[in-house]
């Protein structure tokens, strides 16, 4: 079973770091992750996207997929190709602090959305750059892709050495996201029960 997560945002939102964290945490948990990130150069405000696939067996899917189980949209500017790949039943975590209703490009029918004002929560936490961490916390909560604890444990390894002092703030961001998503419950569990038990 492979679970696809598409992430899209703009430079400075921390999309790649969050993607790395989830992929590393999944690997630590004994799952197989595959992550392909792309970003438009070093310019601020450029697009930043990631295709993350987590499976219980070595990943078979290609680095970029045409259809995804879930998405995490931090910004609307380059979001169209991501939203286009969602299908009925896909899970969408939306950073509503930036992507307001008016700015949101069309979303396929049947997509289940968790609206999380991630950027706002991050600013409130004093870590505006941790916006995607907040959204990731929410994503983990509504999908049970991994436990928040598993993400937190992986933080020290995922952060570049010169950013290790940010472990605590990122931890807070993950929890804040999970808390913000509490109202959605589990939209769809990523893994069948027996697998979750195993992990």
């Amino acid at each position, binding site marked *: 079973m492979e679970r696809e997560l598409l992430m899209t945002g703009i430079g*400075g939102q921390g999309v790649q770091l969050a993607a790395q964290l989830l992929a590393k945490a999944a690997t630590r948990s004994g799952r197989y992750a595959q992550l392909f990130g792309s970003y438009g150069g070093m*310019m*601020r*405000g450029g697009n930043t996207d990631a295709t993350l696939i987590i499976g219980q067996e070595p990943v078979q899917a290609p680095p970029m997929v045409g259809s995804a189980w879930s998405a995490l949209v931090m910004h609307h500017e380059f979001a169209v190709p991501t939203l286009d790949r969602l299908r009925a039943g896909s899970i969408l975590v939306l950073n509503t602090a930036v992507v307001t209703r008016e700015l949101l490009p069309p979303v396929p029918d049947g997509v289940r959305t968790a609206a999380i004002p991630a950027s706002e929560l991050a600013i409130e936490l004093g870590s505006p750059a941790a916006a995607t961490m907040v959204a990731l916390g929410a994503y983990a909560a509504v999908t049970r892709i991994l436990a928040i604890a598993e993400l937190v444990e992986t933080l020290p390894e995922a952060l570049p050495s010169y950013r290790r002092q940010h472990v605590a703030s990122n931890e807070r961001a993950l929890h804040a996201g999970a808390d913000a998503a509490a109202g959605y419950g589990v939209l769809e569990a990523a893994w069948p029960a027996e697998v979750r038990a195993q992990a």
Partner: protein
Amino acid sequence: MSADTPGRVLTRGTLVIDVEACKGCELCIDACPPRVLVMTDTATNSRGYRYPELFAGCIACQACTAICPDFVFQVYRYDEPVELEASLETSADDGA
């Protein structure tokens, strides 16, 4: 050269600043001899960059435009210098 009237500063020229072209590198700030260029505090252009603003006292020396990597400036020299209202900060050496 000409002594400034206190509180006012002799101004020989001015700029047009293409704010949208700026990438916020601040090279112009240090380059300006009378230090009449100052970065915005938090205001940014649409790409998210802060950009310079001009105070009175420009000497039309073209230093800012010489060093700006993003071709942000037009420099105009007044036919006649004028005295404009200045601030303490801009005439002080440690400027903005």
